[in-house]
């Protein structure tokens, strides 16, 4: 492993704290919890449970434009690492205990991250239509019409 930058180290601690609770470092390292640092989509399929999303991402319109983290993690550094810790904890826990809801469903908080990321790339084009509401509950969400951009049609 390469020497970690200070920033990443801080993040690792955050993740480890989250992950440590009830799961233990074994899961985390064996299942490549560190892949949460990576922006390489292949990192996400260190858990086979993400295979479907990976495969479908590869066939959907954005695979050349955006990787998993571009859509699913916040852009700003601190929020990003908090989200990584939170999700890293939950995913590791889920993978170990196999007690999550299937089919996997995006959580409301992660939906908002997603919506923000659409706007990160497409905000200018969207200017007129989203004005005044982006991620609040009364907003018109992008996936209402574009549910297939990340992973192709689901139905």
């Amino acid at each position: 492993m390469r020497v970690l930058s200070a920033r990443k180290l801080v993040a690792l601690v955050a993740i480890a704290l989250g992950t440590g609770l009830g799961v233990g470092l074994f899961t985390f390292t064996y299942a490549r919890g560190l892949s949460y640092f990576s922006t390489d989509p292949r990192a996400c399929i260190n858990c086979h449970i993400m295979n479907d999303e990976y495969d479908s991402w590869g066939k959907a319109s954005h695979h050349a434009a955006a990787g998993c983290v571009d859509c699913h993690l916040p852009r700003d550094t601190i929020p990003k690492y908090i989200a990584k810790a939170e999700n890293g904890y939950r995913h590791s826990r889920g993978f170990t205990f196999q007690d999550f809801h299937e089919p996997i469903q995006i959580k409301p908080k992660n939906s908002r991250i997603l919506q923000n990321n659409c706007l990160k790339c497409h905000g200018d084009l969207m200017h007129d239509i989203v004005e005044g509401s982006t991620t609040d509950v009364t907003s018109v969400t992008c996936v209402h019409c574009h549910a297939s951009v990340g992973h192709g049609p689901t139905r």
Partner: protein
Amino acid sequence: NIFERKQEAKNPYLRVVDVTEDTVDPAVWGSNWPRQHDGYKQTVQASSTNFGGGDAHPAEKAEKEPWLTRMFAGYAFAIDYRDRRGHAHMLFDQEQTRRVTEKPQPGACLHCHASIIPAYRFVGKGDVMKGFEEVCAMPYQKAHELVDDKGNKLISHPVGCVDCHDPKTMELRVTRPGFLVGIKSLKEHQGTKDYDVNRDATRQEMRSFVCGQCHVEYYFKGDRKTVTYPWSNGLKVEEIEKYYDDMGFTDWKHKETGAPVLKAQHPEFEMWNQGIHARSGVSCADCHMPYKREGALKISDHWVRSPLLNKSRACQQCHHYPEEEIQARADVIQERTHALMRRSAAALVDMLDAINDARKAGAGDEQLKAALAFHRKAQWRLDFVAAENSMGFHAPQEAARILAEAVDYARQGQIAAKAAPRAPATQPGK
């Protein structure tokens, strides 16, 4: 939560002119929002589909569906009842219809055919609700010719930007008193007190509510002809029927049978509400005003029209099938509905014939009581689907269900008429 962007309350649009609550002319708004205005102007264009309206000279509906003339016997709709067309024509079409030129109509008609709120405000001296009630009660022509203090006509435009948008923020809002009151009564029925649509609705709901201002069943309440939406028992066909039955309301006495019947008008909002799209949060604007890209901007297409003329934008974002397949799906639904509508109409006509025969043979209102009650029920249902403008698309199974009931009641009416005692006064011992 920390990674949510703070919402900016600033006004986003660059404005070159000022628009206010009194700016009814869309062209003025057009200087600020030329793209939306361009779309809006397109609504003058002729356009039509298998079942959708929109010709330059809209046909009489009875040309394709001759039974309508019998269904409406004795009512203004038997004189002149045409296919709808684009928003730009709504005021003109109302002025010209023989329902208005040959029959006295109230100012109430203008509620949905003109950019009318400034007129209400003027007449009500600032109180829109009061003005609304007064204008409803005026004769149509008098209301239409209202002028303000400077002698300028108050009513001169069809639905305009100000009817759906707050001129300050450009947010969607509902302006029509009929809807404000109607939705409140519906929400109360559903257990929510003091519902204020402009305060409590979500943005996605507003994308349907602005249309629900007009695309609804209505009646004129009382002598003052107040436009009213009969929703306090719910939006389903039998819930609205109950509303009318409970208050003993009737639109007119059917000329052939004498039954006290109801007229259903364009219940798009009510029907859509029973469908799977509404359940899935798909709004009127999603299909009828889909987003379109113009250069560096994405905007809502203000050319409100049949989505089947615009399938790539209106349907394909959600349904990834070729356009032909999308059209075919709509066709299956609409053709099933149309066949059932014809079937119900045939039953209705048979019933009318049977009642007429019974009358000729001497049966009176008393003997025909059961038959006439069936007539009212059957016709209400058939008309509800026929007057709804999507030919069943907005709620396919619901439309079929309503027509099934229409058939049943019409045939039962026919049976009751045949069984009605003839010339009863002269029958001895019975």
